[in-house]
């Protein structure tokens, strides 16, 4: 062992190194040779370690990510917050901009304005003005035969269609004496109130009726607490509006999410425990198998501390290597599961790594120390005689 060129050391440090270096090098050589000479056993121990770390990483990644993934699925249920003008009043013109500035770009906010118009034969029908591009993103469940693309084209609910335009012909509606000619673009089917309505583009609707949006439906991302916080933040900005969560959606989501999370948590715990058990069994076998090394070291006069240190260092090295390899494999598997199941990869969480590392090293150390404790009580001679 020579000093590293370019580093300045005091004579005392150099002397210290001389004393320590052969010792450390022997230690390192023993570690290395143990791994090389018994590579099959070492490989199987490492394999167990890698598999366990990979499974643990996958499970932790999934557990952390699955809530975000499921939340995205739940957003398909549509708006979870509704903003309505008090007493049916229209909302101020800048309401939509305010909502978007508070809730951020990822939130979807769709304005709706309502009016009751009359058909030629005097039937009342609800006409709604909205932004089709946004409504389409918000309400994935709307079954639409064709979305309108011209201002005088309307989207007609299934039941409204049989009243206003049974043969898909253009039709006329009047609102407070003002008439409008509309062409049906497509049919809308939802199984709910929308089926009896007629949807128009917001600007065409406003030109015709002069009615501004009275409702904004918002699909806010995040946990229930985050959504509540956004609502509290919005309330002072829109004093003329009632802002309320859609309880049907919020409670259903919370319910399903909690149950799923708890199930995944229980399963992940079981899986991680089982893989830890697998590592324990393999490593105990590995160390036990080397009782002759242990006995020779002891017979040659190695201190108990050195032997313990040797086996502990070996186990720790195995734990570290296994954790690193397993972590990357686990991230790959988690990403694959995300793609297969959620059609979006699970984002790797490197924050999980310290836990995997600590867990692997801890399990490795436990499985090294257990057999050593047993062997310590046995005379080296007995082990060497092969009894």
């Amino acid at each position: 062992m020579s000093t590293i060129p370019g580093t300045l050391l005091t004579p005392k440090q150099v002397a210290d190194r001389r004393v320590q270096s052969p010792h450390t090098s022997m230690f390192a050589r023993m570690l290395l040779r143990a791994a090389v000479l018994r590579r099959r056993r070492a490989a199987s121990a490492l394999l167990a370690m890698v598999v366990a770390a990979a499974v643990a990483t996958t499970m932790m990644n999934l557990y952390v990510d699955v809530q975000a993934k499921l939340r995205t699925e739940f957003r398909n249920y549509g708006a979870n917050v509704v903003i309505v003008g008090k007493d049916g009043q229209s909302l101020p013109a800048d309401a939509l901009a305010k909502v978007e500035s508070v809730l951020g770009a990822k939130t979807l906010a769709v304005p709706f304005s309502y009016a009751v118009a009359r058909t030629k034969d005097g039937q009342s029908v609800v006409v709604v003005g909205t932004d089709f591009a946004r409504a389409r993103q918000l309400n994935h469940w709307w079954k639409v035969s064709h979305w309108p693309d011209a201002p005088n084209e309307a989207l007609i609910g299934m039941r409204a269609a049989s009243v206003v335009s049974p043969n898909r012909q253009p039709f006329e509606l009047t609102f407070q004496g003002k008439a409008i000619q509309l062409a049906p673009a497509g049919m809308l089917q939802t199984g709910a109130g929308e089926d009896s309505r007629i949807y128009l583009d917001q600007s065409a609707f406003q030109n015709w009726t002069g009615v501004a949006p009275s409702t904004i439906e918002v699909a806010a991302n995040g946990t229930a607490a985050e959504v509540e916080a956004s609502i509290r933040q919005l309330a002072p900005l829109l004093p003329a509006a009632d802002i309320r969560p859609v309880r049907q959606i919020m409670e259903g989501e919370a319910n399903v999410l909690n149950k799923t999370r708890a199930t995944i948590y229980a399963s992940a715990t079981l899986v991680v425990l089982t893989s830890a058990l697998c590592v324990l069994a393999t490593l105990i076998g590995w160390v036990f198998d080397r009782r002759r090394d242990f006995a020779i070291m002891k017979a040659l006069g190695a201190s108990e501390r050195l032997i313990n240190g040797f086996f502990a260092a070996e186990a720790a090295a195995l734990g570290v290597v296994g954790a690193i390899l397993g972590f990357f494999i686990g991230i790959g598997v988690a990403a694959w599961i995300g793609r297969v199941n959620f059609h979006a990869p699970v984002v790797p969480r490197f924050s999980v790594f310290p836990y995997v590392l600590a867990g692997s090293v801890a399990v490795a150390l436990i499985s090294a120390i257990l057999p050593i404790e047993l062997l310590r009580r046995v005379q080296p001679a007995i082990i060497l005689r092969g009894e």
Partner: protein
Amino acid sequence: MFPRIVYESFRRQARRKLLAGIAITLGVAVATAMIAVATDIGDKINRELRSYGANLVVTPQEDTLDVEVGGVNLKPPSDGAFLNEADLPKIRGTFWHHNIVGFSPMLPATIKLGNGSDAKDVTLVGTYFNKALSFGKEDFTTGVRITHPWWKVSCGDGKESPNCGWPDDNSQNILVGERLAAKLVKKPGDTLEISGRQLTISGILSTGAAEDDQIVSPLALAQQILGKPGAVRRLYVSALTKPPDALSVRDPKTMTPEVYDRWYCSPYVESIAYQLQEVIPHSHAEQIRQVAQNEGTVLSRIKGLMLLVTLAALLASALAVSAAMATAIYERRVEVGLMKALGAGDLAVSAIFFAEALLLALVGGIAGFSAGALLARQIGRSIFHSQISIEPVLFPVILAIAVFVTFAGSAAAIRRAVKFDPVFALRGEG
């Protein structure tokens, strides 16, 4: 000789066998629990998804358009057609009646509150809260408390009290929506005059939707107010359904008889709607797409996830079992050397090890299956508050898997032990 060797091996190496047995038991227990949870999770989550409310709506076939803006019904009350309340219990006679969690009829009416010039229109909805009905010999209860679980009834000031709560279905008591109650300055116990009747408010209703501005009453009361006995405007049905697939979306009219039978006998939301139309005359049943379409996706995602997690659990338990077996066999090389030195063939030695492995797998498998069943029950009870049932058919499957995994885990180790030179083994080298 053979049984004796196996017997003595268990007797003399009881501790070592116990360790391998524990590994097998734990592995099998985890596998059993995970398989049980994964096979049942669809049903469990399906029930949880019912907290999103009804997924089917039944309306009269010849109904006029709904004219409703912001929860205020503008449609003339006598307009349009009605369903007959007497037909509702027949829903329990449909093919998939076990899948129908509950149903709630709705009858909206527009009433005037207040006198003279400050009178205003308010919507009153008649429904079932938790109505006791019977069909044939079967008694059951149904209503909004089942189909609309997010409806909350309170005393208005956030406090609970025995004096306020859900009204009885046969009473003349009503619920008032929280925003309407605030406007009217009414609290539970007060009376409200509606169409010449003095009705007692039994609770304040909070739903986060249009009902907050409405009055909700027992169905019979709404029928009296409207003067239409037995009338129901809409019926919400909450049913457990199967996620949609290629078959579910096909039109039943174009199906061959076999395909039709398969479609009819699958709990698709479409086939349940079809069966509801069959039992309720002059009705049109339709899925509420917001609820029905999304639950399929959520359900298949969660089921897929659990399937993958179960595979991981199976892999981990298989590895744990094989690791334990490999270790147990590797330690017995000396024994193998001795047997071989005494003239035992490779086959005879392997047979002993496999017999031991079989015994361990059977005992560990049975113990593990019972432990796993308990574990699954515990998971079901603590997470879903309901039993996770284990199919008895799972038992032989689990046992077969346990034997297979134990054999597979032992095979490599047995082969190595048998191939090992007896001389080295006996000298204690290697």
